[in-house]
C-alpha cells in the first residue's frame, strides 16, 4: 500500500507541517501522518503568530524557505510591529491570524506539494532496526517503511486535560491523546518527562460590551512576515484590552481548593512566563489587577480568545470570575480554559541536528522537546526536515550557530542545557541579539538554505543580493553627501539636537540619536529623490547599518571570537575519562552530553574554562 518513503513525519502541527515541507522542498519523498486531517496546523492556543523574539523566528523560518510566514501573511487579521520605540534588534512582527483560514491555507499548500503524501491514523511506534529508524507502526497494525522518521507529537503523547476536578485523556480540546510512542521509546532507553501548559476560555464576542474595553488597533502601515511577494493587509480587526480586578481574583480564589494546580493533581512543570491566571494571583498577590488581551479568532467568527486568562479551575468558577471583568458582565463561554499535561523527551538526548543520539535517523521536533509556541515548534520542524533529508543522503548536517539565528540559539540551548519548564524564546537568550534582527533574516539565512539546495530560493537570492547592494549604495550616498546648517537646523532643533554651525557630511547628522532618514528626506530633496529609487525595507537596512555601526561591529567581533571555539570539533568516540586533566565533573558531563564542538562543550554547566583549555590542547590541532 505504501512505497518506502524518505521521511515520515508524525504529527501535522506547526512543527510537523514545516518538517514535511522542508524535507519535501529538499527533494525527499515525505509521508505526513496525522490522527486527524481536519486539524492540520491547528492553532491550539492563541490565534497569533510572532511577538518579541518569536516574530524574528518566523522571519528566519521564512528566510530558510519555510511556510509559516507566508501562511500568516495570507491569513492575518491584524499586524503590528512590536517594540517600534526600541532599537532595530527589538522590532518584532506579530500578527493575529484567522484560526480557520490559517489551518486551511497550510493544508492547501501542503496538498499542492507533489512530494508530500498524507495518512490519517495514529502512529503507535517507530520501527527501529540496527539502531536506525526505518518506519512507523500504526494503530491498524500497519508498518510503513521510510529512511528517516521525525516525531512532532506536540501535547498528544499521553495527554491529560484538566478542568477543575475533572480530568480526561486528550491531546487537545475534543481530540484524543496518542498512546504507545512514549512507552516504546522508553524501552529503547529514552528518558521521558512530563510538562504542563494551559489555555484560556473562548468567549462569544456577541456577549461582550466592547465599549468598556480599550481598543488596540493594528499598525497603520502593516508590515508582513515573508520576504516573498505575499499580500499586505488592506483592512484589519482590532484587539482589545481588559483588566481583572480584586473582585475577579476573589472569585477565582474560591475555586482554588478544586484546582488541579493547587491540589497536586498536576505533576508537570508549567512555564513561568505564561502562568495561568490562578498562578498569577497566587504568586503576585500584591497586584490588584492583571491585563487581558481580548483577541478575535477570525474574520467571520464571533469567537474570542481571552489572552492572559489561562486557567484549569472548574468551568463554573471560570465563568463566574469572567463575568466580574468590566465589559464581560454578560459574557457567554464557548468552552472553558483547561490545563494539559503531556510527555516530553528531555532534549539533551538530541544532537544539534535534532537527531536522537540513541537512534539514528530518528528526529524529534516541537513540543516533544519541551518547547512551547508555534514559532519555536515550526523552526524545529524545519531544521529536522532539512537534517533528515541530509542524513539519509549522508550529507553534512545543517546546524545554525548562536550568532546565525534565534533558531541556532533555541536548538543549542535545548541540546546543551535541556529545559525543565516549557521553553519559550526571548531575545534575552541570544548573546548576539544585535545581529539577529527581523530585518536581516534573509541576508543571514537565505544564502545558507539556498546552498543546501532548498527549492524555490534561487529567485529570492537575487533579492537578497539587491538588498545588500542597495544598502551599500545608500551608505555611499549618505557618506558622500553634505548638508548645510540651513537645510537641517530647524529639524534638529525640533528634536532637541544641537544645531549645525557649518557644512558637514550627511552621515554625521544621521548617526546622531533620534535622527532618522525618513525625517531627513523631508528636508533634503536630493536625498529624497535618491531614496525614491529604493524599497523601504532596503532603506531601513542601510539606516540600521550606519546608525548602529559601532555596536554591530563590536557584536560581530564577540561572535567571531566565540565561533572560533565552535569550529573546533570534538570526536564522538572520545573517552573523556582518559583525560585526567579534566575535572571529574567535566568528565562526567562531557561523557553524558557528547558535545560536537568545543564551543558547545563550553556551554555545558560544570565544564569550566580550564576544562575547555584542556580540550583545546587535545582536540584543537
Amino acid at each position, binding site marked *: 500500500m505504501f512505497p518506502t518513503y524518505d521521511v515520515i513525519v508524525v504529527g501535522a502541527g506547526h512543527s510537523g507541517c514545516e518538517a514535511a515541507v522542508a524535507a519535501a522542498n529538499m527533494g525527499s519523498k515525505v509521508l505526513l501522518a496525522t490522527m486527524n486531517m481536519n486539524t492540520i496546523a491547528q492553532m491550539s492556543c492563541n490565534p497569533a503568530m510572532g511577538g518579541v523574539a518569536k516574530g524574528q523566528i518566523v522571519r528566519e523560518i521564512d528566510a530558510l524557505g519555510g511556510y509559516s510566514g507566508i501562511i500568516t501573511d495570507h491569513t492575518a487579521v491584524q499586524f503590528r510591529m512590536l517594540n517600534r520605540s526600541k532599537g532595530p*534588534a527589538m522590532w518584532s512582527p506579530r500578527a493575529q491570524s484567522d484560526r480557520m483560514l490559517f489551518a486551511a491555507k497550510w493544508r492547501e499548500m501542503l496538498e499542492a506539494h507533489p512530494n508530500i503524501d498524507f495518512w490519517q491514523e495514529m502512529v503507535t511506534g517507530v520501527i527501529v532496526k540496527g539502531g536506525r529508524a526505518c518506519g512507523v507502526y500504526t494503530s491498524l497494525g500497519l508498518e510503513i517503511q521510510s529512511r528517516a522518521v521525525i516525531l512532532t507529537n506536540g501535547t498528544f503523547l499521553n495527554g491529560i486535560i484538566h478542568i477543575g476536578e475533572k480530568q480526561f485523556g486528550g491531546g487537545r480540546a475534543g481530540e484524543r491523546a496518542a498512546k504507545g510512542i512514549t512507552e516504546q521509546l522508553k524501552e529503547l532507553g529514552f528518558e521521558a518527562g512530563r510538562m504542563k501548559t494551559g489555555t484560556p476560555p473562548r468567549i462569544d464576542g456577541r456577549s461582550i460590551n466592547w465599549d468598556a474595553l480599550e481598543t488596540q488597533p493594528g499598525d497603520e502601515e502593516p508590515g508582513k512576515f515573508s520576504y516573498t511577494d505575499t499580500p499586505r493587509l488592506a483592512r484589519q480587526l482590532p484587539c482589545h484590552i481588559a483588566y481583572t480586578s480584586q473582585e475577579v481574583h476573589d472569585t477565582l480564589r474560591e475555586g482554588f481548593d478544586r484546582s488541579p494546580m493547587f491540589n497536586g493533581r498536576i505533576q508537570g512543570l508549567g512555564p*513561568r512566563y505564561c502562568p495561568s491566571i490562578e498562578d498569577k494571583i497566587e504568586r503576585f498577590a500584591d497586584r490588584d489587577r492583571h491585563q487581558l488581551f481580548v483577541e478575535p479568532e477570525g474574520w467571520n467568527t464571533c469567537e474570542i480568545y481571552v489572552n492572559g486568562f*489561562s486557567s484549569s479551575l472548574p468551568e463554573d468558577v471560570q465563568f463566574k470570575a469572567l463575568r466580574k471583568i468590566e465589559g464581560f458582565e454578560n459574557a457567554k463561554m464557548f468552552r472553558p480554559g483547561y490545563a494539559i499535561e503531556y510527555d516530553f523527551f528531555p532534549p539533551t538526548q538530541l544532537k544539534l541536528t535534532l537527531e536522537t543520539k540513541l537512534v539514528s535517523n530518528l528526529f524529534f521536533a516541537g513540543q516533544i522537546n519541551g518547547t512551547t509556541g508555534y514559532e519555536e515548534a515550526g523552526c524545529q520542524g524545519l531544521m529536522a526536515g532539512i537534517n533528515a533529508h541530509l542524513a539519509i543522503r549522508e550529507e553534512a548536517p545543517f546546524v545554525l550557530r548562536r550568532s546565525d539565528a534565534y533558531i541556532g540559539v533555541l536548538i543549542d540551548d535545548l541540546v546543551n542545557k535541556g529545559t525543565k519548564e516549557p521553553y519559550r524564546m526571548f*531575545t*534575552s537568550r541570544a548573546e548576539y541579539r544585535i545581529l539577529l534582527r527581523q530585518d536581516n533574516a534573509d541576508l543571514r539565512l537565505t544564502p545558507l538554505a539556498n546552498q543546501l539546495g532548498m527549492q524555490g530560493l534561487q529567485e529570492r537570492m537575487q533579492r537578497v543580493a539587491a538588498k545588500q547592494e542597495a544598502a551599500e549604495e545608500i551608505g555611499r550616498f549618505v557618506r558622500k553627501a553634505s548638508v548645510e546648517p540651513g537645510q537641517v537646523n530647524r529639524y534638529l532643533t525640533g528634536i532637541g539636537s544641537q544645531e549645525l554651525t557649518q557644512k558637514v557630511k550627511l552621515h554625521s547628522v544621521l548617526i546622531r540619536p533620534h535622527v532618522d532618514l525618513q525625517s531627513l528626506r523631508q528636508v533634503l530633496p536630493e536625498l529624497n529623490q535618491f531614496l525614491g529609487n529604493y524599497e523601504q525595507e532596503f532603506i531601513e537596512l542601510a539606516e540600521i547599518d550606519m546608525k548602529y555601526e559601532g555596536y554591530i561591529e563590536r557584536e560581530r567581533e564577540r561572535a567571531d571570537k566565540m565561533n572560533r571555539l565552535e569550529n573546533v570539533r570534538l570526536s564522538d568516540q572520545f573517552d573523556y575519562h582518559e583525560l*585526567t586533566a579534566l575535572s571529574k565533573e567535566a568528565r562526567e558531563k562531557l561523557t553524558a552530553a557528547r558535545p560536537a564542538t568545543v564551543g558547545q562543550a563550553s556551554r555545558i554547566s560544570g565544564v569550566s*574554562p580550564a576544562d575547555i*583549555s584542556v580540550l583545546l590542547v587535545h582536540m584543537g*590541532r
Partner: protein
Amino acid sequence: MSHHLNDTIVALATPPGAGAIGVIRLSGPEAIAIADRAFYGKSLSAQPSHTVHFGSLRNEQGRILDEVVATLFVGPRSYTGEHVVEVSCHGSDYILQEAIQLFVRLGARLANPGEYTLRAFLNGRMDLSQAEAVADLIASSSRASHAIAMQQMRGGFSDEIKKLRQELIDFASLIELELDFSEEDVEFADRSKLEALVHRIQRIIKALLDSFQLGNVLKNGVSTVIAGRPNAGKSTLLNALLNEERAIVSEIAGTTRDTIEEVLNIKGVQFRIIDTAGIRDATDAIEAIGVEKTLQKVQSSALLVYVFDVAATQPEEVRADLEKLVHENIHVLVAANKMDLNPYTKQEHYFPKDSPAHYHWVPVSALNKMNVDYLKDSLHDAVLTKKVNLESTIVANARHYEALQKAYESLARVLEGLSAGITSDFVAMDIRAALHHLGEITGEISTDDLLGNIFSRFCIGK
C-alpha cells in the same frame, strides 16, 4: 573566556620576584608590530628573525620606561610557531608591570596560564606526550588561580564584587524585561535610578582599579611576613616551608639584612612570604635600615609569622616584640621555634590566660622540620576562615585588573548610551559585556541568571 588563538598575547616569561632581568614575551600575529610601537631603536619589523636589538621602551607619552634588549623570532620559527618578541628589561616589578600594561594598551592581551605552550602545541611545535603534561599544568594552574582569586577576595571585597554583580544583574534584568516583555503586564524601575547605580558601580570599580595602579600589589599572593629576633630561625623556617635552601642561613645573627620574598602555594592558596632582617636595636647602620624595612613590610602585610627561640627568649621580650609589630589589619601566628630544645614550653608561659594578647600558637622546630605542616595548615586556615584581612591584596591578579578595566569601559559606554538616548537593546549589550567581564572574576554568568531573576521578581505574561 579568552581562548582565542588569533590575537597577540603578552606575559612575563621569567618568574616573578627579584631577578637581575625580567623577560616579557609577546606572541601572536601582531607581536612585532606591537613591540615596534613601544620599542625605540631599529624598526623590528624590518629585521631578520633570530636577531637581538638594543633600544629603549617608551610609553605613549614618550617617557622612557627602561633600556631593553629585544629578541626577534619571526613565525613559524619560534617557540609558539607565531611571531614572538622577547623584551628583556631590568628586573623591577614596577618596570615589568608598567611594560606589560603598556603592551596591553597597545593591543596585546594578557596570556592565560599555559597559553604559550597551548599555542605551541596547536601550531604543531610540540608532540602529544609533551602536550599531556601541558594539559595537566593548565588545568591545575588555572584552577588554583581561580581559587586564589577567590581567597584573595575574601575579607570584604568578595562580598563587594558579588554585590556589584548582583546589582548589575538586577539592572540587566530590568532592561531585558523591558525589551522582551514591553507589550505585556510588567513594571520597570526608573531610568535615573539605573543611571545612578551604574555610577556607583563605576566608582567602586575605579577604586579597585586604583588599588592596583598604585602598585599596592604587584604580584600574586597573600603577603605574609616572617619576623622575629636575630637568630630566632626565621630563614631556617622559611627554608623548611619552601623545602629548599633559599635564604642565606648561618648562625651569625643578622645574616638576613635585606628582605627576601618567596612564593609558597599551600593547598591552592598562594602566599608571598617575606623573610626579614631580625628586629633588635641594631648596632650598625646597614642593619638599622634592614630593621626599618622589616617594620615597613609588617605594616603592609596581611599575615605575620612571629618566630622566637623558646630556649633563648623571655616572655616579656616576646610580648614587647609583638606589641611593636602587630597592627589591627594583620593576623598573627606565633611560631615557638626550637621546640625540640625545650619541649615543655607552653603558651601560658608567654601569654598568661588573663592577658589580652592571644595569638595562634604554633610550636615548631624549623631545623628538624617538626610541625612545619601544622604551620602550613594554620596559614591556609587563617585565609580560609577569613581571619586575614586582605584588603591590601585586592586586585593582585593582572587578569582581574584587565577584567575590571573592561567592565569599567563597558559601563562607561552604558552611561554614554543612556545619556545619548540610545535604545535599550544597545545599552543592554554593554551591560552584558560588563557582566561578562565581572563574571571572569567571580565565575560565569549566563542568560539563564537573567531570566531566572526576571521570573522570580516580576509578573509577566499572558
